[in-house]
């Protein structure tokens, strides 16, 4: 995370000189300290990320494929006059304990065209779908399975 902050500083500056690098080291350290102290961040999350790196990359690939698939399904419904849409509000539970992973799941559902997360309280999800076919099997989708595996690998951090 410290290295990412330093990289972000260098990228925003646009070029690498010794002066920029020295300032970056100091500022990145300050921000890292702030994150640990006030934003509930701790270095053991990095261990968790390192353990899950393959799953995280697979998750992104699957997410992009799903986005393209459902985007095509939505565009069919936009341009064709024959298909009447039947909007649907789906309530379902997920058994994911970690709050961050639930946030990731809610954001992935919203990113996929055709479905929007309306409400999340604890582990009850409320999802609005443009058409009932887009919400089919949402309560045991591939995202939830992958996030569960990631949570098991993390073992409590």
């Amino acid at each position: 995370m410290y290295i990412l902050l330093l990289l972000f500083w260098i990228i925003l500056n646009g070029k690498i000189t010794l002066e920029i690098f020295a300032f970056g080291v100091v500022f990145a350290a300050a921000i890292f300290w702030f994150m640990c102290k006030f934003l509930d961040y701790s270095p053991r999350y990095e261990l968790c990320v390192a353990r899950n790196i393959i799953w995280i990359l697979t998750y992104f690939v699957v997410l992009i494929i799903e986005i393209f698939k459902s985007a095509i399904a939505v565009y069919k419904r936009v341009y064709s006059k024959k298909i009447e849409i039947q909007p649907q509000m789906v309530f379902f539970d997920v058994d994911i304990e970690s709050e961050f992973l639930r946030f990731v799941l809610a954001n992935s559902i919203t990113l996929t065209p055709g479905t929007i997360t309306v409400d999340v309280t604890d582990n009850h999800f409320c999802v609005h779908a443009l058409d009932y076919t887009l919400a089919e099997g949402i309560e045991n989708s591939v995202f939830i399975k992958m996030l569960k595996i990631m949570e098991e690998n993390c073992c409590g951090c």
Partner: protein
Amino acid sequence: MIRLILSALFIFAGVNVIITALVGNYRFSYVLNRMQVGATADTMGAILVLIGLIIKIGINMISIKMIIMIIFFWVASPVCSHFLARTEAIANEDILDECEVVRHDNI
């Protein structure tokens, strides 16, 4: 030359996505349905246009900044549409007329 064609294809696809979002906004009548289509302009459209531009200028500091822009778009846009959807779901009393409700939970 190949890079130019590839980037043109990506930008063309992105503009198409944004036009589709525009058409969809007029095609549907209810707020949540309109938002479903409108949110794709943020994610898919912006991404495709930015990827086209990245291919066009090659890898340097500006294209790395564009990649950071993509990440911010993907994190920020769902939060925005989530808040709009929740406000609509709380404020609208006749929401059951617009969509059927299916429950898989055990409340």
